[in-house]
């Protein structure tokens, strides 16, 4: 079929932006050779939180579906690590993509159930599903029951340096990959359809866009991303328990990062993740105050500047590092010439 | 005595400008008709008067000498201006009688009450406890008018009373107009049905693309003049 959707144009800022981003990724990837362990861990955490945030943003910011239950897939990823990595003895780093598969498959029946709801009810419905997963696994003694299982055995055979390095590289891969995935998706015609659905379902449907298919695809993609990240997270945490795996705190963090950074943008989660980690470091030692402050900041942004920090920057400087807007440029001369 | 004075009124739907500097007057006890094709801005005009859309400046609209251009809708009804909205817009969760009663929410005193509305539209009395949206189109229109009257307005705005109704029903509705006017209410009627509009109006305005294209007494205006003003061709 001939491609007749308008092309996405980038400006100089976007070329610089992409170049800087790629450079940062390369530097990050080189860190195992020169950085301290604690920093490696922190950076890995940054990147896997970024991955989660991009997945949540895909669902909420672009798909218009607020999910308070993505932790179901993070948890399933963790338990995939238990089953495949610990029990079946597969290399834990290979389990990561497999966990994505598991999560993707699980998303099918789960989606079938939750898509019967809309809006706020969809949100809480996804939460219920995550709770059901948590309770089912807490009642499964063979998988550790309520206190969970340690997965140290699965990673013990891998030398420490390689374990840290692979963890970081996978995290960078997931974080950078999630960003790239969303970016490419939005530049494609599927992305155009997604934006149309988000803006007006009725109008999009009348144009022949299959709402159901789009929402499903986005939901499953997000599940896969969360599943893979979940497996990686528990490689670093070394213990999988229902409480930790299916905790709503994951969604809380994703929510903060995306809302403060800028919902519905690709750059937003990146900035949001930086702010999230900064705030956490600054308010370290004040107990739950960092959550209170972040909550207040997020609410503040939603009320007064719903496009987040990135939105403010865009407004001031008209920046687009990852351009996905389609600007129509009519070729006047061509039109006049053809008359 | 002019009860409603509109001067250089502009109105926007977001970025889209719907009204371009409308000048308009309504005298006490008058019936003024506003005609025009779809999209000419007639409904937007009434909605702006009623306060659902803000005017550019408060004194663009003067009701009995008070500037109401920026006053919100829920306070304008308290000042004596009531709108019978396009499409009736009855409340489905309320019965016929409850719809009428909610019309009196603003608490203005005056000659109109439930009993008088039922005198005006007897068929409603039989259906008073039915859900309002279970009635026929014409009966719903009666409820909508009655609901507006319950607020004891000085100015009544009627947006396309004839919309979707059979000619005989339209006639019945308009036959109630003299009874309404007997209390001294001033009326603006927005109509697609030009014949009906000309029958009831003391004066007539024609809108075209957000501007007044013609104004005058029905008896003074020729068919050609109206055609030109209406279609602009």
């Amino acid at each position, binding site marked *: 079929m001939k491609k007749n959707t308008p092309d996405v144009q980038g400006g100089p800022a976007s070329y610089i932006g992409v170049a800087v981003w790629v450079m940062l990724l390369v530097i990050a990837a080189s860190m195992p050779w020169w950085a301290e362990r604690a920093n490696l861990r922190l950076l890995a955490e940054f990147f896997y939180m970024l991955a989660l945030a991009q997945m949540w943003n895909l669902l909420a910011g672009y798909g218009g579906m607020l999910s308070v239950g993505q932790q179901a897939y993070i948890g399933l990823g963790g338990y995939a690590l238990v089953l495949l990595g610990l029990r079946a003895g597969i290399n834990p780093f290979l389990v990561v993509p497999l966990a994505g598969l598991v999560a993707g498959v699980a998303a099918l029946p789960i989606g079938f159930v939750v898509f019967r709801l809309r809006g*706020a009810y969809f949100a809480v419905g996804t939460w219920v599903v995550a709770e*059901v997963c948590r309770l089912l696994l807490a009642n499964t003694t063979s998988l550790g029951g309520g206190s969970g299982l340690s997965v140290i055995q699965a990673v013990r055979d891998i030398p420490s340096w390689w374990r840290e390095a692979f963890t970081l590289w996978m995290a960078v891969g997931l974080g950078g990959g999630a960003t790239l995935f969303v970016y490419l998706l939005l530049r494609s015609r599927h992305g155009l359809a997604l934006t149309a659905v988000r803006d007006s379902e009725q109008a999009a449907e009348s144009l022949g866009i299959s709402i159901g298919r789009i929402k499903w695809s986005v939901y499953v993609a997000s599940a896969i991303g969360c599943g893979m990240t979940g497996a990686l997270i528990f490689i670093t945490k070394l213990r999988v328990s229902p409480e930790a795996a299916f905790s709503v705190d994951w969604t809380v963090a994703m*929510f903060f990062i995306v809302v403060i950074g800028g919902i519905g943008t690709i750059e937003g989660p990146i900035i949001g993740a930086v702010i999230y980690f900064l705030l956490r470091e600054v308010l370290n030692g004040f*107990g739950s105050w960092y959550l209170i402050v972040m909550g207040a900041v997020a609410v503040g942004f939603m009320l007064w500047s719903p496009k987040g920090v990135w939105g403010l920057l865009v407004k001031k400087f008209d920046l687009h590092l990852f351009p996905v807007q389609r600007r129509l440029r009519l070729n006047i001369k061509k039109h006049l010439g053809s008359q | 005595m002019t009860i409603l004075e509109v001067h250089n009124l502009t109105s926007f739907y977001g970025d889209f400008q719907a009204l371009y500097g409308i000048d308009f007057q309504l005298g006490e006890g008058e019936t003024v008709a506003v005609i025009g094709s779809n999209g000419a801005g007639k409904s937007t005009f009434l909605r702006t008067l009623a306060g659902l859309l803000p005017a550019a400046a408060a004194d663009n609209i003067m009701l009995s000498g008070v500037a109401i251009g920026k006053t919100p809708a829920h306070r304008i009804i308290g000042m004596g201006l009531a709108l019978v909205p396009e499409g009736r817009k009855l409340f489905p969760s309320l019965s016929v009688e409850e719809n009428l009663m909610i019309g009196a929410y603003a608490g203005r005193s005056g000659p109109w009450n439930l009993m008088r509305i039922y005198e005006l539209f007897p068929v409603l009395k039989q259906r008073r406890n039915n859900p309002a949206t279970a009635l026929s189109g014409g009966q719903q229109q009666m409820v909508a008018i009655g609901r507006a009257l319950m607020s004891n307005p000085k100015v009544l705005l009627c947006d396309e009373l004839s919309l979707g109704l059979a000619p005989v029903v339209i006639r019945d509705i308009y036959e109630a107009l003299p009874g309404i006017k007997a209390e001294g209410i001033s009326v603006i009627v927005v109509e697609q049905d030009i014949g009906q509009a000309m029958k009831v109006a003391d004066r007539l305005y024609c809108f075209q693309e957000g501007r007044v294209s013609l104004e005058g007494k029905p008896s003074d205006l020729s068919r050609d003049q109206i055609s030109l003003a209406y279609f602009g061709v």
Partner: protein
Amino acid sequence: MTQWINILIQGALLGGLYALLATGLSLSFGIMRMINIAHGDLAILAAYLALAIAEPFGVNPFLTLLVVVPVMAVVGYVFQRTILNRTLGSDILPPLLVTFGVSIIIQNLLLEIFSADTRSLKIGTLSTDSINLIGGIAVGTFPLMVMMTAIGVLGALQCLFSFTKLGRAFRAASDDSETAQLMGINNKHIYGLAMAIAMAVTAIAGIYLAISTNINPAEGSARLIYAFEAVIIGGLGSIWGTLAGGLILGIAQSIGLQFDPGWGILAGHFAFLAVLMLKPNGLFPITRDR
């Protein structure tokens, strides 16, 4: 046999508490088409307010209702008018995101102020008293009280909606907020009042909750889920549906508990999911989706 009747009764009475908890949620959805994710946490907030009064001064928990209910009503009105009214519009995300943020703030504030220790409101022997009916069937006194309160509150709300000017205004604003303005209804104020009433009921639910079990700052989320499930099972926007939903949820949980302690809550979730699959709008839906 008697055992099963007792389980059913127990579950039904638990349902009364869930119905009370769910009513506030049902109200704010019915009138403002808004789900308040902080709902459960506001119930817990009310409970902690009651604790703050009852414990240091040794006041009877039931007396705290006299203070906490009006305070929460005011909190609800202010919350709606200053924050929530700003989020209302055609987009569904803003109210959800804002109330989610508020939920996090409330939970963590409570954590900071009251610590994570579990607490409860003590009412002495009343909490374990029961009335013995014929045939060995026993009905807990306090749970019965909760159910009576639930029925009373719901009945009062029904009267409010059906017979009063304010109730008509609520229904009109819920049907068509623009046309409601044309009647002279100030939507911002009406929504504030609706939230005030919702919070007053939620305060009662929170205090009763703290009497019947131990609570901690993180309880809000779990309670929100139950409230939500009760509303969905019963049907969106239906007052008595909420009672039915609460009953079904309570009974399901009670039965599940009998089979295995870990399955109590799960049974409730399964009942919810089952209703969702078969009748997504609930058993007695009234509200149209805008």
